[in-house]
């Protein structure tokens, strides 16, 4: 606690609270005296690498001068002692405002202090820091000039981007230097400690570290956030589970969603209107042989369907593919396309595997269409001239295979076929290699709509997230399954559940820990005349596994363990139902 006080009152803090300089003299006289006449011990401690044996108070040494500036930049700053680092410091209010990573004044100043102490000193690290700093200085200059230049632009995106980069360099550097800050802190403190000789410096180090760490707000984006959030310490999460949440079944879920008044209705409509204004342009682009790809947050289904209505010209000229439907296969897509092209009553053998179908389609499209109106009676089919595919979620689960994408890209690269597709997954562009990309010939359009993905993603996705079991949906499904099963299957499940409940009662924990060994369960089943042989037993189990009512795992000894993946309360209700 005491340490904390010194920190808050240290000169580093002065920029934010200039008045506190008065308190410095009272609470920490040693520190306060440093800038005025750097006691040799402290100075040597700090800058030993730099100036080994020289008495430091000489103001002429550049090293000293710098150090003075560093220790309390703003106290002295009116006199302009600043070196290069000074320029870094000037925009501080701006910086604090811009970089959300470091919010409070304390840490900002820590960092500032650190940056300047570390960089001029160490020769080895010098190169790197200098490089950093030059980038950083540039960014500062940029930010400053931007601020001075005022808002005279600027729809120029690139400039904005650079700006962002500049700020990132600036901000990122800050957080990188935190450790340096600690070190520097340590050194001053260590020096102080040595003189007063109170505590071991290691303990102070630890405390210090903790303290600073708490003062920093976590980085929220960029690579830093990744490393920050993947630290071992961060993996600690609370142990609360969803059990305390009331179960929500499908019907009430949909009722609630339906009754809920969505937010930003007008704004969303406006946004969609903006996209609709682009329809003529999109249509023109399609006409010119490009394919369209829409991206951005929000369901683009509705928008695309409206677009479909606009570009729809003649029957069979437009095929809609719902890529988000999990049961979709690429073969379905191709046969539907074929049907659209040659009409529903065709007698052409398409071939059995998707590749063959595609070849057939392409060759049909390639054969020149009879011109004029000479209706040749022999012709079995009337191929359409041009076909547009409207593909919701080209990144849908069903189409994620390379094969599907290859086929789609070949299909859409044909001049008589246009493709309008949408993507939602953040990594969707990874689906395509250079060859695919060039075949797709996409023009990308940002179509952020903020519309909920009511069709594309379902509540089941959420349930699957929670762990494959029907936690949130309750155990209703289990009941249905059990109701449709024969008596002996129900009995088997009863045996399993009651055994598991018994285990929980005995304090065995949860899940697989209280599972039943395969052999034990089989033995019990035989004893209760549920089944007579292993074969029948397996068949029964298979049914449960298919419905995810039973999980099977090998434990550490290699024996198979079975358990019903439900919570105690749920197990109880199931058991009640079974017995009743």
């Amino acid at each position: 606690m005491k340490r904390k006080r010194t920190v808050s009152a240290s000169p580093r803090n002065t920029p934010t609270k200039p008045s506190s300089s008065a308190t410095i003299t009272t609470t920490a006289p040693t520190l306060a005296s440093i800038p005025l006449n750097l006691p040799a011990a402290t100075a040597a401690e700090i800058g030993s690498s730099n100036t080994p044996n020289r008495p430091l108070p000489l103001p002429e040494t550049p090293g000293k001068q710098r150090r003075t500036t560093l220790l309390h930049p703003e106290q002295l700053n009116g006199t302009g002692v600043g070196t290069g680092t000074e320029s870094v410091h000037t925009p501080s209010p701006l910086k604090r405002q811009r970089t959300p990573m470091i919010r409070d004044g304390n840490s900002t100043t820590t960092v500032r202090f650190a940056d300047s102490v570390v960089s001029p000193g160490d020769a080895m690290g010098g190169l790197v820091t200098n490089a950093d700093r030059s980038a950083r200085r540039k960014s500062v200059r940029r930010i400053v000039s931007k601020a001075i230049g005022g808002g005279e632009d600027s729809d120029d995106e690139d400039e904005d981007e650079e700006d962002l980069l500049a700020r990132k360099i600036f901000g990122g550097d800050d957080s990188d230097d935190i450790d340096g800050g600690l070190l520097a802190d340590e050194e001053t403190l260590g020096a102080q400690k040595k003189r007063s000789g109170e505590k071991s410096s290691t303990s102070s180090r630890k405390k210090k570290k903790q303290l600073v760490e708490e003062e920093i707000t976590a980085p929220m984006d960029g690579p830093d956030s990744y490393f920050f959030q993947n630290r071992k310490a961060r993996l600690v999460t609370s142990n609360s589970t969803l059990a305390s949440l009331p179960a929500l079944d499908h019907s009430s879920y949909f009722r609630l969603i339906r009754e809920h008044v969505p937010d930003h209705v007008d704004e969303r409509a406006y946004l969609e209107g903006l996209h609709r204004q682009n329809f003529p342009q999109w249509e023109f682009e399609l006409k010119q042989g490009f394919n369209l790809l829409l991206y951005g947050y929000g369901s683009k289904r509705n928008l695309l369907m409206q677009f479909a209505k606009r570009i729809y010209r003649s029957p069979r000229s437009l095929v809609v593919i719902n890529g988000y439907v999990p049961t979709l296969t690429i073969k379905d897509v191709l046969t539907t396309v074929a049907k659209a092209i040659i009409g529903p009553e065709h007698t052409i053998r398409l071939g059995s595997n998707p590749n063959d179908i595609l070849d057939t389609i392409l060759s049909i499209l390639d054969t020149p269409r009879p011109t004029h109106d000479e209706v040749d009676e022999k012709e079995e089919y009337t191929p359409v001239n041009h076909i547009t595919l409207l593909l919701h979620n080209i990144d849908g689960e069903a189409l994620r295979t390379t094969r599907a994408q290859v086929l789609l890209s070949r299909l859409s690269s044909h001049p008589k076929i246009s493709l309008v597709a949408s993507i939602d997954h953040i990594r969707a562009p990874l689906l395509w290699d250079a060859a695919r990309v060039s075949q797709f010939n996409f023009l990308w359009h940002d179509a952020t709509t903020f519309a909920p993905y009511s069709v594309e993603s379902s509540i089941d996705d959420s349930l699957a997230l929670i762990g494959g079991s029907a936690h949130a949906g309750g155990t209703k499904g289990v009941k249905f399954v059990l109701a449709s099963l024969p008596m002996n299957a129900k009995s088997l499940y009863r045996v399993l559940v009651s055994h598991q409940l018994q285990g929980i009662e005995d304090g065995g924990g949860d899940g697989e820990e209280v599972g039943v060994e395969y052999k034990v369960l089989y033995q019990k089943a035989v004893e209760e005349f549920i089944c007579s042989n292993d074969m029948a037993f397996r068949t029964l189990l298979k049914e449960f596994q298919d419905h995810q009512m039973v999980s099977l795992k090998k434990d550490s000894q290699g024996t198979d363990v079975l358990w019903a993946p439900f919570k105690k309360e749920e197990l109880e209700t199931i058991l009640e139902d079974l017995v009743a």
Partner: protein
Amino acid sequence: MESTPPEEVYVEEFDPKEHQGCYIFTLDGEEDRPTKRRKTKGKQRATEKAAVEEEKCPFPVLLDNTETESTIKLRYQTYCKLWEKQEKRTKAILDSFNSKTLDDVSAFVKDATPEKYEGKIPTALVLAGPNIASHELLFEQLAQRIRNQDRTGPVVVLTSKDATNLKTTLRKLIRDATQQDEGVDDEEEDIIRKSAKLLNYDLQILQTWCGLHEGQKVTIAIQDSEAFDSNILSDLISLFSSYLDRIPFVLLVGIATSVEIFHDKLPKSAIRLMRGNKFDVERAEECLAQIFNDSMMSDKAVLRLGASVCDFLLERYRDHTQSIQAFVAALKYAYMSHFYANPLSIILGFLDSIDGLGDVLSTEHVEAIRNVPSFRRYVEGRLAAKEVSEVCKLVTDDDYVRHTVAEKILESRNYGIKLGQALAFLEIGRSCTLIQNKTPRYELYAKALSGELQTSPLVREFLMSLKRMNSTTLLNLFEKIMQEVQIPAIIEALGPLQEKIQKLVDEAEASGGKKNLISEFDMTNNTLRGTAVSKKVRLGEQKSSLTKQDTEYSGLIQQVYTIAESYLTTTFNSSENGLQNVFLHEIFFYDLRSPHSAVFAPKPRATIERGLSQPQDYLACACCTSTDGEEVGIRGSQAPTSIIYQLYLESGALINIYDLWSAFYSVIAGDEEHFDVATAQALFYRSLAEMRFLGFVKHTKKKTDHIAKLGWKGI
């Protein structure tokens, strides 16, 4: 999941097709049942025709909706006409590049026989360059050519996707080879009957087929040799080799990297079985350069790209796509957006005959012209020259503006042509000197447009070395320039000089047998002596060693130098000859970078992240934006997924769902906590499902009721 699709029950306006995989779209009310074909046919044709009529002009009405229909149509026609021309030229260039390779390879295949290659497999290594996007096309064309034009036999194109193991590869190979010429069904059946006992991956089948088709070669094209498993590839090669006496194989290997890498990939035993030739597909850069020169710098080009778009396209080409097709597509897009959105682009249609232009430009057009920056600059220039009456007319008299435009556009167009010529001159000049880094014209172009070339070392370097040229290289340079660039100014000035120099050379040859005249400025020979004094001495020596012809030659080359220098410096002088001084350059140079970068180099992930973390950027709603426009952070009024996402950003790699839920609830309920818990829960589940759908989280088994974070913002 045991749940039944529930929406059908609850959602009123349920579209039954939402969950259908794919279907043929029909408008509401229209039946999609198969109608009687005969009847609909005529009708369908009619509607289609009507549609064609109606679609004639997809361009919007510009100029505040005052553009007349005829000008819109004209704009569209101009686009079609100009792009068609450009496309034709581009295609011709592309075809010519491909055709050379095709010719070479097909010639190779034609006379490849195992005997000729000492009993080894005749192999063509096709070095196709790193742009894998073009390989498919190339091999397709190769196969077509060999199959249909040369008729040497079946061609099987194998890609690494087909070759997961030896069995499937052979199966595909045999199937493709034997089924290629259609219409010989009985024969086919024959083969099948004969080979009934054989497994379908037995090369014996192919052998039988070859027995039936005397003199046919089986060409196997391996498209992406790098991606093949090396074991499979070497097995294939040894198989081919052992069947070579019965099946005349010819192997084509596509290589994207280098022959050395291909060598390293295979065991020596396999390499030894092949003999053949290497075919360099012409360098992609050359192709790009030709297309670029044609579309930007030739006198046929009409719409040119401005510096920033150009930079963007070239950078994308160099660093990302390496694909000429992509470049052409981007070029097309430039044409498209220029004519789509710029009402003044109709002027480009009148370059050949200015006659009708005055009538077409409406008052609104003239007003638009007056608003163009280059017009303003032009007027200001007039004003500075104190031509007040003309300025008056320009500002007030519409007819005068029409007249001026008609008068000036050719001049503006010539700017591009002149620039192109100067760049050609510079490029050729540089290629004749000893300058090491050859900067292609397309690199120079953007620099020239942005005025960087004026002071660039590229020009200085060239001029310096021009001075040092000996007569042979100089004459060579003259010849090239006269051939390739038709710049009247240069040709007129240099023509006589060329003759004189030629004469000198002849003279020198006649008198002393010395063929090569040296310039006195040439110091290349005396680098041996290092010190300043000795250099001076050498200089004197050299001067004295110069013959009479040499001295004369030096005088002439000084003249050449002066001409070239004045020509280059005036053309590239940005203050006099810069783009911004060109009247109406906005019409001749398309320079909007953002449409291109948005459409060709999008940032889909960053867009989603931005939408979720700063929804106010898109929605611009009052509730989520603070008054001072600063970041607002999380608010209950935001979309639920957006709230979740922002909470997600703050959390670690593992997220406890319950904690997320409680944080979510406290945000959405605000301070008063009057939000319905069940509704919040439903929203929570929905948003979580969306997060999963977007790929931000996944289920984890590390801890109960936890999800794993998959994406970090801004990486």
